[in-house]
């Protein structure tokens, strides 16, 4: 198949050149220029429409209190957590020990299969931090790496996300510019998450929790 590339590109290059239209001016999006509190409000309101719940706490101590409340209400016994820079300072494993919740992290597993057994078959919730919270549409931005495994925010039925208040941005481009800036280490995967997984494929009846989480809870810190 080596020359398939050449053959395709050759045909495309040989064709008449087309005109590249001039891009007309576009008015800036309404969210640009919102201050921090306005962004958090917009985020909360738009995510609510997708059944996402947003809590606001002052600091990490209160964040742990809120987590305890959630763990109690949902009766969670087994949770898998990321080790990103938002979650790690909370020291969830020793917190969980005290509260009777088994907390595991990606590094506790020797290989992919063991980790998959945990997130797919055992964990009742996944706790992650977030790199961005986009006001525009109530969207979280997660850059995946060794401390932010992809399946933690995806495979368990409940996703709990923690996001510091200074990580709110108005629109997608603010997040994208930071993640994909020249010379930056581009993550193997970057994900925008807006509400739980959903479908309306049978008789157009909406249904949350198709293949990923059925619910998402966001705790804003600060």
């Amino acid at each position, binding site marked *: 198949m080596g020359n398939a590339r050449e053959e395709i590109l050759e045909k495309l290059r040989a064709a008449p050149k087309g005109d590249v239209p001039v891009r007309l001016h576009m008015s800036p999006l309404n969210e640009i220029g919102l201050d921090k509190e306005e962004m958090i409000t917009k985020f909360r309101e738009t995510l609510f429409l997708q059944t996402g719940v947003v809590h606001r706490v002052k600091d990490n101590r209160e964040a742990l209190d809120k987590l305890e409340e959630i763990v109690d209400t949902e009766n969670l016994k087994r949770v898998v957590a990321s080790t990103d820079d938002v979650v790690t300072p909370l020291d969830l494993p020793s917190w969980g020990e005290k509260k009777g919740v088994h907390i595991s992290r990606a590094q506790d597993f020797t290989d992919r299969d063991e980790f998959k057994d945990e997130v797919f078959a055992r964990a009742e919730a996944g706790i992650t931090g977030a790199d961005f919270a986009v006001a525009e549409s109530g969207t979280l931005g997660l850059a995946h790496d060794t401390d932010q495994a992809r399946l933690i925010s995806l495979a368990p039925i409940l996703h709990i996300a923690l996001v510091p208040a200074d990580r709110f941005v108005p629109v997608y481009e603010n997040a*994208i510019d930071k993640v994909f800036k020249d010379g930056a280490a581009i993550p*193997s995967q970057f*994900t925008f998450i807006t509400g739980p997984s959903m479908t309306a494929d049978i008789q157009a009846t909406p249904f949350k929790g198709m293949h990923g989480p059925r619910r998402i809870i966001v705790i804003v810190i600060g």
Partner: protein
Amino acid sequence: MKIKTEQFTEVARREMADMNSRAFLQLLPPVIAAMRKAAMATFPDPDEANEYSRAIRAEVVARLPELLEEFEKNAIAGGARVVWARDAKEANDFILDLARKREISYVTKGKSMVSEELGTNDFLIRNGIKAFETDLGEFIAQQLHRPPFHIVGPAVNVSVQEVCDLFMEKAGMEAPTTDPIELGYAARLYLRDKFHHLEMGITGVNMAVAETGSIINVENEGNIRLTKSSPMVQVSVMSIEKVVPTMHDAMHMLRLLCRNCTGQSISSYVSIDTGPKKDDEIDGPEELYIVIVDNGRSDLYDDVKAREALRCIRCGACLNHCPVYGTIGGYPYGWAYSGPMGQVLNPLLLGLERTQDLYRACTLCGACKEVCPAGVDHPSMFLYYRSKDVQGDDGLKGKKRDWKEDSFFRIFSLATTFPWLWNKAVRLLRPLYNRNAKDDVVTNISGPFEGWFRQRNLPAMPSETFHDRWKKMKANRLS
């Protein structure tokens, strides 16, 4: 999937009598259209936003070869392996060969229109590799062996009873139910096990960003993220026109795609891959293959009119606004793409000859063109196909007409070009024509014109034409 574009009229007639399809078509397309309008209103100026996305897509078509090369270079730099495939066979052979080399027993698939086009599922299954569609609607459509009814809801018209029977038989559902939510949950349980032990996943690509070499998937269910996160091997298949210049362009197109597709401001998940997982990551693919598929597109790229079809981003807005689709649904179009989108794409990819009814089943009302965020001018494409078809165009595989029809229209077009000739001919033919009139109306002329009169009448020709009277009036006034 069998290509059934030749059975358009027959299937359309059957579908118009189908109560499930009718119920869906009368309700959902108008609802989605209204949701689209509301979502577009979040832009400071929706028209401006539309013009901007149309300009992006026009640029993609104009700069296609250089953008593909830029994308390839950056994707490889990010660690992805890029494979080019001239046609369905090359793409499918590559995927099968890879699955065999990695000793894969089954794959899961994220919804991908291009893989529908390539028939990848059937090919893999025929060759001993199980392929599970994982988008709920695609999963149902696949098990029922039907083409997608709607690009967004491929099986949204299927009755709950039918889904229940299907899941009892093929998805290990334990107790029958007709609750759509319980049915969805049964599919979750069945497919969850497939995701859990998955070793190779196949997805499509919504956008390939030239600037960074990244691929973007847009979805609501999470099946595509699972298909990309769980296995060791990821294969993402894209047709050549999926490329966009920059990440900012991709973000603008993302807004337009979601608003036009489902009326959402953004889908639940948007995942952007740049290369395979890094060594220290526990999930994500160790190998990422991006298969760039041509499948006839580079041949028609030489035709600057036909290649405008490559602007399409598969959002489905044209389906929701089309009065023809709204009457007959997706099955009559007979292949992967339905509605105006299918009427534009299927004839190019399959040839004009075997898609005769597709580009003629249109009133040229232009609703599709008006909503299209990619700037496809569907009606003018249909007129172009119609003319290329009767001329028997080689490249587009037109079906030339027989000599009688051909010569009739040659003479007709000559006559309409010269007024003196037209007037002479009309006078000459008037007695012949008026022989068919009854009460000054012609309802039929037997012979080759019968088809034309099936739904129309013509008035009889008066003994004096307008021009005759005009001349007379002028002469009277002067005298």
